[in-house]
């Protein structure tokens, strides 16, 4: 059953999405330049232009334009991409699975690395180890995904060429899948050759996205674990003879994960931001790469569609974080 808390969050999510739609719509309409002039081929007749104007309601006020646009949007029609001459929804839907697979992989890797390093750092007792980890992490925190991506290209693409540096899958592989979730579908169909190739293409961009996340998780979780370890229940467990590792895994990690999780949610939304540049570097065919093309070509319908897509993703992530809070924190479960 949906609790009132959850209900409130869903309502809030819908309101936020609507807000994003309004704001982006208004901002994109005040862009200097005539959207119609950009939409059609040079040399179109004056009638053609007038017809298009009427179709988009551009001869009416901003509110009327928004209502027309919203009406279309609610039926799943976000217009046609100007630069690619394709339905915006189809375009985005075709690229989205690539980005979802990439970011989920990166999230898993980042969580594993960050949590693993944080737990490992609680095992050492020496101050020196702690401060070395802190200093190294201070540098890790400063290095953005952009730099990691390029460094990987140099290291594993050029200096020691073991991984492909562009694309999502080798075009020579004959792929006749029903979805664009290549990794998931290849695993389900047990086409391990394809899965292997997709993974090889994904490792570097995923690592570039995962490392900054791991650095943030490490810092916050390490701090939380350290302060939890000083609490009475953890000390009691130690007195009862549990090892450091056991205390961390059984007692403190669960509590320390709560602040970490909130942060992971925020960082995961940032990771979608990172896909914009990382996908570009690896010529990876996701929505981040698409967004740059859209902006460079000033393809306003596509930009608008992408902004809503990103907005929706961010809202879903926030909802997921809220839900996992409830799972981790028993006090919130019956709220």
């Amino acid at each position: 059953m949906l609790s009132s808390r959850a209900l409130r969050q869903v309502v809030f999510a819908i309101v936020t999405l609507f807000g994003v739609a309004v704001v982006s719509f208004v901002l994109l309409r005040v862009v200097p330049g005539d959207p119609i002039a950009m939409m059609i081929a040079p040399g179109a007749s004056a009638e053609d232009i007038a017809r298009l104007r009427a179709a988009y309601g551009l001869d009416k006020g901003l509110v009327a334009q928004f209502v027309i646009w919203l009406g279309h949007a609610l039926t799943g029609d976000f217009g046609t991409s100007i630069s690619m001459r394709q339905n915006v929804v189809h375009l985005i839907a075709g690229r989205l699975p690539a980005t979802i697979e990439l970011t989920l992989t990166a999230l898993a890797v980042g969580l594993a690395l960050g949590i693993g390093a944080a737990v490992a750092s609680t095992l050492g007792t020496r101050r020196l180890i702690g401060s070395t980890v802190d200093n190294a992490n201070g540098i890790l925190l400063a290095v953005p995904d952009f730099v990691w991506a390029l460094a990987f290209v140099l290291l594993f693409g050029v200096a020691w060429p073991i991984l492909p540096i562009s694309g999502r899958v080798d075009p020579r592989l004959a792929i006749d899948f029903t979805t664009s979730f290549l990794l998931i579908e290849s695993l389900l169909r047990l086409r391990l050759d394809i899965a292997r190739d997709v993974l090889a293409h994904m490792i570097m961009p995923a690592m570039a996205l995962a490392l900054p996340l791991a650095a943030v998780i490490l810092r916050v979780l390490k701090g939380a674990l350290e302060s939890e370890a000083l609490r009475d229940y953890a000390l009691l467990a130690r007195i009862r003879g549990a090892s450091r590792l056991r205390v961390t895994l059984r007692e403190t990690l669960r509590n320390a994960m709560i602040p970490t999780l909130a942060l992971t949610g925020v960082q995961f939304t940032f990771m979608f931001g990172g896909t914009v540049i990382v996908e570009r570097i690896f010529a990876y065919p996701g929505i981040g790469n698409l967004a740059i093309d859209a902006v460079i070509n000033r393809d306003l319908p596509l930009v608008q569609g992408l902004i809503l897509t990103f907005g929706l993703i961010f809202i879903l992530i926030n909802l997921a974080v809220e839900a996992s809070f409830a799972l981790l924190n028993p006090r919130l479960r019956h709220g």
Partner: protein
Amino acid sequence: MVERALPEIPRLGGSVAHRGMPSWLKGLRREPRVVVAGGYLLLLLLAAIFAPLVSPHDPLEQDLMLNTLPPAFSAGADPGYVLGTDSLGRDIASRLIHGARVALTVAIVAALAAGAFGTVLGLLAGYYGGWVDAVVSRLIDIWMAFPPVLLSILLVAMIGTGLTSVILAIVIIDWTRFCRVVRSETLQQTRMDYVDAAVVLGRSRWTILTREVLPNVLPVVLVLLSLEMGIAVIVEAVLSFVGLSVSSDMPTWGGMIAEGRQIIYHGWWVMVFPLSLLVLTVLAFNQLGDGLRRLTDPVMRR
């Protein structure tokens, strides 16, 4: 009776005096990273300012006969081109130095503007409270609900490319970083009793805000400024990498990296040098900010 119940009053002071080195100098010895990072950034700034004087070549001068020359330490190099040339035969070292101009302009202008705007709003919200605080806090909430990527895509799509757009985008997105911190810091300072003491003395609210509270908030702003400059350098590099920053006839680190990415198999150095300089600069801003935080923190808050 009163006199008997109380002890003699001992004299205090004198012994706590530590003379000699001023405390900020001592601090620098404790945080050498501030000196190293600050020194590097100062050098970079000087190189950027005097770029035409210190560059060995014109950064735009092409010489296709001399294209993709390797750096001076490897075979087949031309000693006139220390870091080699790019695919159009332009001198990489000179382009790096000129690229520092764009990077540092964006870093300094964007960070100062975002810092000034966020700090003023944060101070007002934290000090005056009430509806001012309510308005500013809501504004921050709304801003934070808009993830930075979304906002930057929207902004660049709206205002187009160019140096001013890049700076404007950074300011519009990042002023909240300053505002949030300054607001809570001001709130904390305003609760201190020294503010009450100043009120009793009849100082005006404005004087208290600018003379008493602001100096206590400034160290934090300084730290944030340094970190923000690092962020701005990255943002500029990323935008020029994808071709959304300044026009292509002005050398930028991001643009050079993009060119290097194209010919990565023929000339790794074309990408490696600008990338290294970028990383170094970002790390320097970060370490400077971190060092400043450690320097100002224990002293000011004790």
